[in-house]
């Protein structure tokens, strides 16, 4: 039940997802926003950690405007988000460590070339 432009294109537009019109009509983002973030919170005796749901909710709130789009373009926000995913955080840390080592190595190499080109023997001792 979507109705498009009710007014000339320059004016506002109303689009209605008729929830009453059928189960398919409501979009996923709207449903998730409600069933995860709202609704009566009663902790059952089988519990998901409240923190899990809170993080999930926050994360969803960030992408919920276009959840379907996110999935279509293959953005896997669960796996790549360091906040939600410890592995991703480790990977990120690893990456910056690698980066540091590379920079270090780069600097050292540059120093050695400089020393060699200037004909000095101080920097080249390691190559002997």
């Amino acid at each position, binding site marked *: 039940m979507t109705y498009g432009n009710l007014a000339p294109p320059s004016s506002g537009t*109303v689009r209605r997802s008729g929830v009453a019109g059928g189960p398919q009509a409501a979009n996923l983002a709207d449903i998730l926003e409600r069933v995860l973030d709202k609704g009566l919170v*009663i902790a059952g005796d*089988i519990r998901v950690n409240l923190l899990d749901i809170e993080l999930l909710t926050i994360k969803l709130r960030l992408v919920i405007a276009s959840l379907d*789009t996110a999935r279509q373009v293959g953005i896997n926000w669960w796996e790549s988000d360091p906040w939600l995913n410890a592995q991703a955080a480790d990977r990120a840390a690893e990456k910056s460590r690698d980066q540091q080592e590379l920079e270090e190595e780069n600097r050292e190499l540059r120093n050695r070339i400089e020393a060699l080109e200037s004909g000095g023997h101080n920097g080249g001792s390691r190559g002997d």
Partner: protein
Amino acid sequence: MTENPCVWVYAVADDAASAFTAGSIGVGGGAVRPLSAAGLTAIVGGVARSEFGEAALRQNLEDLEWLERTARAHHEVIETVARERPVVPMRLATVYSSDEAAAGMLRERAADLRQALIRLGGRSEWGVKAYVAISDDRADGQQPETADPSAGPGAAYLRRRRAQLAAHRDARQEAMASAQAVHAELDRLSASARLYPPQSPTIADRSGSMALNAAYLVGDDRAEEFEAAVTELAARHGALQLTLTGPWPAYSFVGQDGTEDAR
């Protein structure tokens, strides 16, 4: 020895609601059934412990496919009942280990739940979002095609960019003022209203950012009036694009403990 299934709770409704669940299939493929205690009916369904036990649940919630399937099933059951009777919807993943445990919850919270059901009776939730209708062509369209050639391409670009930014700023201010006016009007027509933080247009399939994200609890006898008001407001405020969704079960109006007052 078969494992006892867990009990998934969809919603709580009054006694008369038990008639409206027969035959539906809900979350995890489990049959939906009523569970009565303390003059209330919990709408529940059996779910496999292997999929909905603590550890599995935590893992599955992060699986977007699973989450979608589950969320839709949860919502559909609640909606089916809500069409006939007032319900207090439960948040996703409200799971008990036995019927007895779920019934215990009903008894313990009976007074609150009954109060909430009375407050929600004959009312539904409607969602209204307003997007800032920023069109890039609004700025671009104003640009003369032939810029002063003596000024050079850099200066022309800067001028164009400045005009664009100014247009965006104006559009945003106009939209924010409009959003407030829209909310004030819709608030007046509803029994209760909730404002939510605007959703981020991170990977937006929409050009504008969100200026209003609100839920309204509207008497069913005023639903048409409410809808007409949204249509009228959309026409009046060209700086906004409005979307209306509903009627929803009153997810946004059951609060943290089900006793939330209408403001």
